[in-house]
């Protein structure tokens, strides 16, 4: 227990109470109208929420679990609240970061100025398995590669946020941002009557606008579709949800075919051309002719059509080179290089284990650090030193020694906490935040994001696949 407290609640910044226990002004309404309710009736609201989610079918599948198993991501009724000004600062930082990341991608797949200038070593890019050589010289609408970016943020103090990770491939979770708000409005209508919480429900319209702007330049009124791997994908609910919110077709690979560098969908009225594909299928599975030949999810010839400008894919192909955990280290330099600005959002200090000095420091301090695989995602395959048993740490040490370049390490951050309903009542639990940044002809985001919460006491792992839950995220009007 003592060990947990070192990383856990004791010295963490609390979203509601700060460091000193005084309720922060943005939480006054929540304290007055929600947390003043008896624990029993809060618990009842929590159960009502679960019922709503189950009825709406907002479930997700877990890789490796039985095929028909559908789980709910636990929803917590206590919202996470941002004041108007702190959000403004975050928003500016997010836009800056995503802009630089897209400029980086365009540069890498064209003139590689940043390598020529010696800011990023060539082998970091060209030797990276995420680099997609076939994208070299391909021109994309708006020179944007990651139209939809999910940036994971954590907070350690009133004004200290860190970017934990950039997600530029097929980031998911935005449907929870929308449905969490929906659910809160159904459960606590009185909380919203004063209109101080900025709405997020227009996100699908922002997304649609972004997708329209991403169409090949010659198309005036683009036909847009959402491409899903299918009903058994863990994020299928979200794919269907977004398609229906935007009023566009939800297609699977088998609904599409390519002819003459153009893409068509099979409809009850014959083939219809498609101009923009919001694809939620990974690069590797997009096109069996260009990537994994065994992929059943993709569309033969799609990549070729894309390279010829016959169709737009969002996100673009090859974005993995920019959100890779080893490229992450260079993002602050990218911002300076492309924008001539100081980064508004900081990176977490990171040790690269391919560097001998970093490696020996990390190996000496494993019990204090968080170690991650460079290619990993979803909270799998990481070591959280302070909450791991000695044997786990030693086993991980052996993995590191086998391939140091495959790992990075970071200090164990005291992630901020937020009051959360747990079995014993309301207690602080660690949270992070994933806002969704949209890039078309301009950069847009809805005020909010997905707040994930680690429900186990002292736990820092917020991933839904690892027992994390979600909260509604409020941004207050000024």
């Amino acid at each position, binding site marked *: 227990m003592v060990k947990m407290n070192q990383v856990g609640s004791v010295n963490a910044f609390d979203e509601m109470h700060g460091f000193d226990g005084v309720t922060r002004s943005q939480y006054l309404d929540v304290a007055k109208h929600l947390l003043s309710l008896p624990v029993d009736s809060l618990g009842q609201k929590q159960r009502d929420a679960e019922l709503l989610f*189950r*009825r*709406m*079918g907002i479930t997700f599948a877990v890789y490796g679990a039985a095929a028909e198993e559908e789980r709910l991501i636990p929803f917590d009724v206590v919202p996470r609240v941002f004041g108007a000004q702190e959000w403004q600062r975050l928003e500016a930082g997010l836009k800056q970061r995503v802009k630089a990341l897209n400029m980086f991608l365009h540069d890498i797949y064209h003139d590689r100025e940043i390598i020529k200038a010696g800011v990023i070593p060539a082998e970091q890019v060209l030797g990276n398995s995420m680099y997609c050589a076939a994208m070299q010289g391909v021109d994309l609408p708006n020179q944007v590669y990651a139209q939809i970016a999910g940036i994971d943020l954590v907070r350690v103090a009133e004004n200290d946020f860190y970017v934990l990770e950039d997600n530029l491939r097929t980031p998911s979770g935005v449907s929870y941002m929308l449905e969490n708000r929906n659910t809160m409005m159904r459960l606590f209508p009185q909380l919203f009557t004063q209109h101080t919480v900025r709405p997020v429900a227009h996100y699908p319209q922002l997304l649609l606008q972004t997708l329209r702007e991403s169409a090949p330049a010659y*198309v*005036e*009124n*683009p*036909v847009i579709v959402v491409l899903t791997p*299918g*009903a058994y994908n863990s994020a*299928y*609910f979200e794919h*269907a*949800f977004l*398609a*229906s919110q935007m009023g566009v*077709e*939800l*297609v*699977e690979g*088998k*609904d599409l*075919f390519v*002819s003459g560098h153009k893409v*068509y*969908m*099979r*409809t*009850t*009225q*014959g*083939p*219809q*051309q498609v101009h923009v594909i919001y694809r939620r299928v990974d690069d590797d599975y997009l096109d069996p002719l260009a990537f994994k030949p065994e992929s059943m999810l993709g569309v033969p010839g799609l990549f070729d059509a894309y390279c010829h400008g016959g169709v737009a894919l969002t996100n673009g192909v090859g974005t993995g080179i920019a959100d890779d955990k080893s490229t992450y280290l260079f993002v602050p330099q990218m911002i300076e290089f492309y924008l001539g600005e100081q980064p508004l959002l900081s990176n977490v200090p990171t040790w690269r284990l391919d560097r001998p000095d970093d490696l020996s420091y990390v190996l000496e301090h494993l019990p204090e650090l968080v170690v991650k695989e460079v290619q990993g995602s979803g909270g799998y395959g990481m070591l959280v030193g302070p909450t791991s048993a000695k044997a786990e740490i030693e086993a991980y040490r052996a993995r590191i020694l086998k391939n140091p370049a495959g790992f990075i390490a970071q200090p164990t951050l005291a992630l901020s906490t937020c009051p959360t309903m747990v079995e014993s009542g309301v207690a602080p639990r660690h949270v992070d935040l994933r806002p969704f940044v949209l890039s078309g002809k301009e950069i847009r985001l809805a005020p909010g994001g997905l707040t994930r919460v680690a429900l186990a006491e002292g736990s820092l792992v917020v991933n839904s696949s690892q027992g994390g839950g979600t909260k509604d995220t409020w941004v207050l009007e000024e």
Partner: protein
Amino acid sequence: MLSRTADHLFWMARYIERAENTARILDVAHRTAMLPDEDEGAVARLWFAPLNICGSAEGYEKKYGLVEAGNVTRYIALDPDNPSSIYSSLMQARESARAVRGAITTEMWEIINSMWLDLKRMLPSLDQANLDGFFDWVKERSHLFRGVTLGTILKDDALYFIRLGTFLERADNTARILDVKYHILLPSVADVGGAADYYQWGALLNSVSAQEAYRKIYRDSITPMRVAELLILRADMPRSLHACLNEVDSTLEVINGSTGREARRLAGELHAALHFTRIEDVFAHGLHEYLTDFLARTHQLSNEIHDAYLSLKDDKIPGGIRPDRFQLQLQSTSP
């Protein structure tokens, strides 16, 4: 609309309708079983009929052998191994709905999803004693689904394919119920008018919610020919073959696009035949033969609909691709 989406909508509607009809068939069997039995053979015939109507006789025989009330009911209502059980129908309806979540309204999805979740919850406590309530529940949910569908969905191709599924399935089921019941109930056409007969035919009418309609229209005792007329030829009787084909025919007319000419022709032909046939002609031809022929033709119609609208094959772009919306706009605005 995507062919795959249309396919799922069509089958979602068929499976819901199938679940409802299966519940109706079992409900009637249960009610009939409460009448005094004549002999062992009659009981076996009574319980064999639902197996026959639902196309489950072969599967049942493999699993249980002898026909027995409890086993038949369980097999047709609740058995996941039986692909046409109520359980399987609701599961497949929900799987189809799930695959096209975006094409149906939230309210429709909530009904279909909660129907499935409730069924799974009720399953352990269902037995012979409370099955009446279960059959009513299935019917009510199906009514609710239809009502929610009409009350919430946009009147476009999605609704049309749902309606095609509903009415083709219903036509198929009504024809089967009539065919099988007729065989059991009518050893000889002359043998009419007994009290048992009255209850038996009454039960058949009940199974398709036609008892009240019969009384209103004929105001007379129940005769096989009138029952057949009501369920085959009366256009104003919602579960009759004529009413179903009315819907199928008019729905095919409003589906967008120029595909499906053969399906339209077939539906028109079937519909016209029902419109102009007299019940005396049907009986002269033989009711069983008539219904067998009808089932074959609706099956063919279903196949035509599949080929024209629902299948994924054929990558070939025909001579010209249907111009998409913006091209159409360009054409219409150019001088």
